[in-house]
């Protein structure tokens, strides 16, 4: 989400006195989301690298004794699936960090009240779209499950792999609503600061507008 009112950090530290069940659940969800995306990206990198090493090691006769027992035919497929899961959950994380940007040059010229209207409309649109996709995705998963389709190399049931769509999109919908509720409570919108995220250097003035 792009920002209207300038603000810098996406997340506020949890300063509540007593952790409630809801806040515990939310914290667990946050950790799960962040854990999944970081882990999947790391694992995908390592698997693809291992498969390249294996491909070249297989060309060396002296190593055949070790390489012939291992097959990395599935590496490419698994890399793609891991990264698609990373992308679907990362998109939800992105709502929380305010990295999804739009064309806001016109809206920024409006009065505060109208800006508020457009922010609420945008967040609701995001929640609506992701909810529809989650629903369509869920019915698609059920359909695939009945067909019993499996993936070409790993022979994993495809419905499990396609679960990324309804799960990721539901989470994203939840994040849009969360940002909306926080906004209505008067908290600033999350905005992604490019320099801070990219380098860790302290440049609070750098606000995210769009990206390459």
């Amino acid at each position: 989400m792009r920002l209207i009112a300038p603000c810098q950090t996406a997340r506020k530290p949890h300063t509540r006195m007593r952790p409630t069940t809801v806040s515990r659940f939310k914290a667990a969800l946050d950790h799960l989301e962040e854990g999944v995306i970081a882990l999947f990206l790391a694992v995908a990198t390592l698997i693809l690298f291992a498969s390249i090493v294996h491909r070249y090691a297989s060309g060396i006769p002296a190593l055949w004794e070790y390489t012939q027992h291992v097959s990395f035919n599935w590496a490419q497929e698994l890399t793609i699936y891991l990264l698609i899961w990373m992308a679907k959950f990362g998109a939800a994380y992105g709502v929380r960090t305010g990295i999804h940007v739009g064309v806001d040059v016109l809206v920024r010229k409006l009065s505060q009240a109208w800006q508020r209207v457009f922010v609420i409309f945008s967040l609701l649109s995001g929640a609506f779209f992701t909810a529809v996709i989650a629903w369509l995705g869920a019915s698609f998963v059920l359909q695939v499950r009945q067909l019993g389709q499996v993936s070409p190399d790993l022979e994993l049931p495809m419905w499990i792999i396609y679960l990324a769509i309804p799960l990721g999109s539901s989470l994203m919908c939840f994040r849009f609503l969360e940002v909306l509720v926080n906004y209505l409570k008067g908290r600033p919108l999350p905005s992604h600061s490019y320099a801070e995220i990219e380098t860790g250097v302290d440049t609070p003035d750098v606000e995210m507008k769009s990206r390459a």
Partner: protein
Amino acid sequence: MSGNSGIILILLVALLMTGMPISIALGLVVLTFLFFFSNIPVEIVSQRLFTGLDQFALMAIPFFILAGAFLTHGGVAARITRLGTAIVGHFSGGLALSAVLSCAFFAAVSGSSPATVVAIGSIMLPAMMQQGYPKKFGVGVIATSGGLGILIPPSIVMIIYGVSTSSSIGQLFAAGIVPGILMAAVLMLVTWIVAKKRNYPTLPRASLAEVWTAFRESVWGLGLIVVVFGGIYGGVFTPTEAAAVSALYGFVVSVFIYKDLKLSEVPRVLKDAANMSAMLMYIITNAILFSFLLTSENIPQNLAQWIIDQGLTAWMFLLLVNILLFFAGDFMEPSSIILILAPIFLPVAQQLGVDPIHLGIVMVINMELGMITPPVGLNLYVASGLARMGLTETTIAAAPWILVVTAVLLLVTYVPEISLWLPRLIYATPG
């Protein structure tokens, strides 16, 4: 042109203007259109959201972003600026020249423009201001040379173009090298002329031994150039595999060789890279949906026919592309523009005999121009943030540089050999 294309266009523009995320706007256009105006079942959407991403070539994006994140955090940028300063520091405007050269070096290991601005700018801008360069000049130089990030391969924007037009990413990368070097040379020349006229400071000449030391220190970072290009063009691996190797290489160099990044900071780097990649991939999936809608309504084909019927020649078409992209670049960021417009331009280009690889490079340089042109010039925002400078001032700072980049853009647009010579040499394919 049919009424359907009008509906799609109006819907898209209306939704974009509300300021909602571009990805959501694209997705909503598709849903609305399928629901109200078409017989295509809406169910196709959810499947496309997955299959749209199910391409190995696309996976180069998260890996290159991860590699870039490691290089930025891991002290590679700082060593590259030292090398740049050692090589060109003693000319007029030495520090500014070094900034351009460092951006070019960093661009050759990183695939993103704003990342290049941040990596090099956060080191060189303070140094330039300390030496008494006007802020305006520094911001202009950094924002413009940062654009080399997407022109000098590897380049995220080129991967996106390659995926959305089914062009070879290896050929696109090769095609970016000569225009990239040309752009860097022109920027350095202009910087040098301005510096000479305004008497900007020079640095003491670095001895050969100092240049050698700076080179040796940065050689691990620069080694990535050899890994990526040697790997891709030596046939060792595909661009996606090269990207994964870069990511791992970047990790090893930052954590174990330069030791500027602690092992405990790695999860944060991973998370940031995943965040950025996921955002891009979300736009990509929705843009693929959108271009599926366009294709199923025959819009690009009809448009191509219409343009041919108007008697447009190749150069008129390219000029039209330049102008359209210039305006689009003022409002949207490069990835979205390429994803929306490349599939529309491509059929026209092919009918007029414009090489898709050439069109890709033209679009990329056009995007660079957009990134230093207000109101949505991302490089400008990032650079002005680094220099703590107001936006109006920043806009003025960029103005002369817009002319310089435009000149290079026109040259590359109308002399296709600049971009096509190298890929033809490497791939030895006629046309």
